[in-house]
């Protein structure tokens, strides 16, 4: 005895003649005896026959002529294609090998650009003349002045600049500046290091006309850098 479920699962194999003789006999007997399975079998066979008998579809245009045209184009262009063939087709490993090379080159260039970049400019409070950053000369010259020390005597003002009014005109903010007194006693440069450059402008101009007894080191005149803080200070008499 075979169940309907088992028969229905074997209908496809039965159709193809794939069942063993005994099994095929059991299925055939069941299909004769069971109206539902018999109907299912006839229905399955009819559906498959409908498909098998369906007329073939034919292209209205010859495929071969389309293929021939495409191949003609490919073959005709083959000569040019060989000339223009990308190198990577001829040497398929060249592209993969270029990747690490490109990475190394990229890193090297990155490092080089980083190192070559100008250092970040320090925050400046001074407007210093470009000539101040020129090549430095020997110690004690105008381009490389020295500071007052135990070996270097301080320059003494010989002709003071009339700066009284200019100082009065300053605001409350003090002016910090550098004066380089040249070896001949003249003022080489006056550089504003701190303070309002607009307000200090006339004062700096006046200070450039000062004249000094130059500073000396071992008896010889040297260029000396002086730092000066100028501020308007109200002095009151002490309360007694």
């Amino acid at each position: 005895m075979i169940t309907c479920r088992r028969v229905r699962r074997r209908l496809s194999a039965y159709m193809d003649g794939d069942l063993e003789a005994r099994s095929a006999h059991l299925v055939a007997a069941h299909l004769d005896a069971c109206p539902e399975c018999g109907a299912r079998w006839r229905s399955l066979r009819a559906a498959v026959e409908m498909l098998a008998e369906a007329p073939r579809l034919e292209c209205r245009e010859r495929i071969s002529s389309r293929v021939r045209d495409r191949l003609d184009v490919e073959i005709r262009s083959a000569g040019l294609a060989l000339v223009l063939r990308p190198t990577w087709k001829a040497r398929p490993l060249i592209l993969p090998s270029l990747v690490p090379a490109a990475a190394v080159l990229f890193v090297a260039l990155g490092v080089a650009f980083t190192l070559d970049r100008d250092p970040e400019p320090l925050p400046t409070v001074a407007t210093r003349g470009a000539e101040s950053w020129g090549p430095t000369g020997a110690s004690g010259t105008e381009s490389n002045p020295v500071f007052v020390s135990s070996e270097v005597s301080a320059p003494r003002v010989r002709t003071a600049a009339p700066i009284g009014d200019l100082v009065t005109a300053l605001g409350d903010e003090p002016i910090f500046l550098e004066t380089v007194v040249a070896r001949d006693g003249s003022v080489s440069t006056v550089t504003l290091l701190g303070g309002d450059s607009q307000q200090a402008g006339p004062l700096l101009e006046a200070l450039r006309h000062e004249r000094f007894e130059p500073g000396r080191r071992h008896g010889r005149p040297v260029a000396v850098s002086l730092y000066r803080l100028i501020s308007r200070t109200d002095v009151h008499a002490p309360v007694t």
Partner: protein
Amino acid sequence: MSKGAGTGEIAMAAREFALRSAEALAGVNSFEGGLVEQCRRGDAQAFARLVALHEGMVFNLAARLLGDPEEARDVAQEVFLQVYRTLGRFEGRSSLKTWIYRIVVNQSRNRRRWWRRRRKDRSFPLDALTPSDEARLAERAPGPEGPQERLERRERARAVQSALLRLSFEHRAVLLLREVEGLSCEEIAGALSLPAGTVKSRLSRAREALRRALADREEVR
């Protein structure tokens, strides 16, 4: 005595038929092998013969798989271009025809995926046969037929294609290779790169799915 002579004649005739069949098969294989060899040597005429021999089968299978004659025509062209480019890799372990079937199914599957990816908002454009194809079918009816028969035949063709398109692509492929192209389960297994057992179970499910899809037809009830 006469019976024995008759049996002997039948046996001889059967042997002769078997020998002729074997010779015919060997002849086909030899012809196919020669054609492939000529194509490999770059013989354009040989390749044209190869295309002419198989183009009907390739187009029909692609059109049934895709349901769109335009798409099928493009796929058929791509199939033969692929055959041309990869013929050097054909090892002859299966027949040339089975090898081409494999390419048709793969190309059609790829085309269908491509379509789905790019036109997600639309279903695959396949409700079967365009009027031009139907007219083409009607012209090729076997023997004389009246207007009523022609109408019924066209209607059956439309119903079959419509039912096919309601099946999954894999069910459609296995059904077409088996019922329309007449491949054995082993050949289908070779063409689809599947175990034969998988082909048989898939074929069983596909036949049942087709039966259900055609269940409203009088012939199938």
